[in-house]
């Protein structure tokens, strides 16, 4: 399934953007909206040089100007106000920040936003809305595949990608025969979902929800 990266944007143009633009927030272009009369930004505070990056989030092109240190996760949460992608650990140990980048699920906390010029990012907000749930979201509601809800967006993004990974024949640690198409059984789902920790312990329900969606697909 490995979706080829669609963009051939000359990414070296990024370098040209490495100019010392004083910025007041993570996202300079939003600074106007963020500034408050009560709290004028400190000008000339020696803010880090910023970089421009453009990528597509949930089908919409987004242009950002960022401190290069900004992770994709923080760009989504703090820059684009897409709070559905959660910060649980910020170190790739929990999976709450899972998004789908160019067709593959990743931990958005362990990648820099500026590395994704031209990238296509799908977050939980891009899958469905409260009024129009994605089938995976609906299955999570039906099977009570969540409790506190904090790991849930990451679980759902992961689950959607997991079914595609199985469909594409990518094996897992529990795949018995590496040369055969992986099964769609509970053991496969559990292993593949293990990068998404749910401390509330909704695992048993989550696997049922994913299984139901997988059954519908088949």
């Amino acid at each position, binding site marked *: 399934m490995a979706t080829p990266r669609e963009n051939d944007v000359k990414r070296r143009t990024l370098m040209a953007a490495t100019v010392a633009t004083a910025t*007041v*927030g*993570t996202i300079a272009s939003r600074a106007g909206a*963020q500034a*408050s009369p*009560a*709290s004028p930004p*400190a000008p000339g*505070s*020696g*803010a*880090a040089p910023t970089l421009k990056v453009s990528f597509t989030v949930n089908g919409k092109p987004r242009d950002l100007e960022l*401190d290069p240190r*900004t992770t994709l996760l*923080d760009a989504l*949460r*703090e820059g684009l106000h897409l*709070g*559905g992608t*959660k910060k*649980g*650990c*910020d*170190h790739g*140990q*929990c999976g*709450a920040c899972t998004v789908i980048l160019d067709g593959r699920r990743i931990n958005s906390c362990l990648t820099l936003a500026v590395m994704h010029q031209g990238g296509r990012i799908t977050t*939980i*907000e891009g899958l*469905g*809305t*409260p009024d129009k*749930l994605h089938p995976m*979201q*609906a299955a*999570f*509601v*039906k099977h*009570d595949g*969540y*409790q*506190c*809800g*904090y*790991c*849930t967006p990451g679980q759902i993004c992961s689950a959607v990608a997991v079914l595609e990974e199985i469909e594409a024949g990518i094996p897992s640690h*529990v795949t018995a025969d590496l040369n055969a198409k992986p099964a769609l059984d*509970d053991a496969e789902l*559990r292993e593949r979902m*293990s*990068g998404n*920790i749910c*401390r*509330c*312990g*909704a*695992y*048993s*329900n*989550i696997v049922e929800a994913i299984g139901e969606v997988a059954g519908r697909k088949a």
Partner: protein
Amino acid sequence: MKFDTPATTNPIDQLKIVGQPLDRIDGPLKTTGTAPYAYERHDVAPNAAYGHVMGSAIAKGRIASMDIATAKAAPGVLTVVTAENAGKLGKGEYNTAMLLGGPGIEHYHQAVALVVAETLEQARDAAEMIKVAYAPAKGAYDLAASRDSAKPSGKDDEPADSRVGDFDAAFAAAPVKLDATYTTPDQSHAMMEPHATIAAWEGDKLSLWTSNQMIAWSVGDMAKTLGMPEDKIHLMSPYIGGGFGGKLWIRADVVLAALGARAAKRPVKVALQRPLMFNNTTHRPATIQRLRIGTTKDGTITAIGHDSWSGDLPDGKPETAILQTRLLYAGANRLTRQRLAVLDLPEGNSMRAPGEASGMMALEIAMDEMAEKLGLDPVAFRIRNDTQVDPEKPERSFSQRQLTECLRTGAERFGWSARKAEPKQMRDGRWLVGLGMAAAYRGSPVIKSGARVRLDAKGTVTVETDMTDIGTGSYTIIAQTAAEMMGVPLDKVVVKLGDSAFPVSAGSGGQFGANSATAGVYAACVKLREAVTAKLGLNAADAQFADGQVRSGQRSIALAEAAKGTELVAEDAIEFGELDKKHQLSTFGAHFIEVGVDAATAEVRIRRMLAVCASGRILNPKSARSQVIGAMTMGAGAALMEELAVDTRHGFFVNHDLAGYEVPVHADIPHQEVIFLDETDPLSSPMKAKGVGELGICGVAAAVANAIYNATGVRVRDYPITLDKLLEKMPDVG
């Protein structure tokens, strides 16, 4: 509303909506990422600056000097808050250590500074520029080494010791006895959402958007900490990404966000960074537990003794691991003792089922060991020693006690009869297979809880209470309660939670939340019904609320009519009388587990899990089941992997992130089955419900331990049961 006589028939008993396995009403928000958690409130504080917390690098001692000049001058930095410049700070009633340390340091990673900057990246970088010189002092970090210095210690209204009959004589005389010591490690809540807060000042008024289980406690403790009136604090916590007791109180994030916002003169947001959380916040303290059980030859307990040692910071509290032993099994001669040592580790405090979760880890292995000595089936041994009254105070009966039914039902459903009493008898390929079980027990306290209910002209019922939903399903069961009481469908109910502007509720903790908070909503709805009948001129005595109508005699009027012109508002609280003193309110259950232990490597994998619960009326079987499977999962973690490793030289938890502190992942957990026994408890509240979210963890770890013993013949008394503790006694490979 005073609840001091047993509940009689009331509108909840209709069970048209209450008791139904309905989807959560907050589900569409949570599954689409649109439920806003504390740190995500760009809507309320669009110009918030970012705070980053710095933790102490020593466990005990003093800050000799601190240089914040470089950090203050770093790009984007707005302010640096330390104890030296924060002004006088108090300590919350529920806090053991100061939330901002300095110059005295009470534990490792105690917050010593907050750096506030324009961006998170700037704040995090600048925090590294703070230079602190410490003068460390010698501390005590090793529970085993401090055991002999431990002092008797009770908690709340529970005494440290309890004695009935003559334990020593009865134990000495018992023909069959066990004297064994068990240990449980320090454990971490490790909830997925870090402690997080946005703070904003408007004059002398402080608004806090935070992640907190107990709104009123936290307003009170913020007022105490900052030395300001409670009515100047508005605290909101509508969505909470897990708590498990770790968010019962204010922590460094909320105090420092408030101080940072005051210093920076603009809103500040702070989330504790994950690697800080394990030492900065609270944890479930380790215990050493000695169990002594003596029986007659036929398995009747004649003596039961339970000693427990735990440690905490000075003025801290014990882990009440002996509580269930006072109540769970019969036996004429009894002794429980609780001892607390002073340890300079991070603050120990409540974690899901404090007391019983740890106590049952030990007691229920001991019961398994005794059953084996007696040649009795572990289920039968427990049933033989059932009691329907408080064994320490026989004049007190349990309001409901279906332990025996739980055990029998579980054994039946699990296929317990297939278990071989002799260990090492079952094998499935590479796996040694074993079955284990344990009883489950958890008290079910009730706490005063208030709510306000509004009815508008569209017939919409809005509930407002400071009750929180930490994943427990509060939104949904409160909506179900209001819908049942007011005779409207669920989608005509709006539930607003977690706001200090709303009436004070029980809050979420100690598995008292669901029953108490819905009872508070019940009370408010009773008042609203009275207001409705008065307004409509109907006879309150025979009025029926159903299908959006109010019927009395021959008349039937739309509920919404009552709010034409002006909204109707009613507020009340449920207040509990003496019923829970005259009777023991408790929940009971049984856990059954099948494990496989890899014959070569001793890796343990759980293959089946079943819980049977008797815990009053189940308000929503779907969300209640989730509470139980979640607790079972945490119990599995406690059994097999969870342990904060203590560096006893330097006094900190070494494995302080989610890679080092392992909690169960998907692959660790099989399909889980939960059975709720039919039960209503008219002594518990008008809802006739009890708690279940903590019952679900109590006993799980012991059931796993007992299953491992059944599979391998290796009895491990020190949790977690990792493979290194089994390996030596595993069979030869090949």
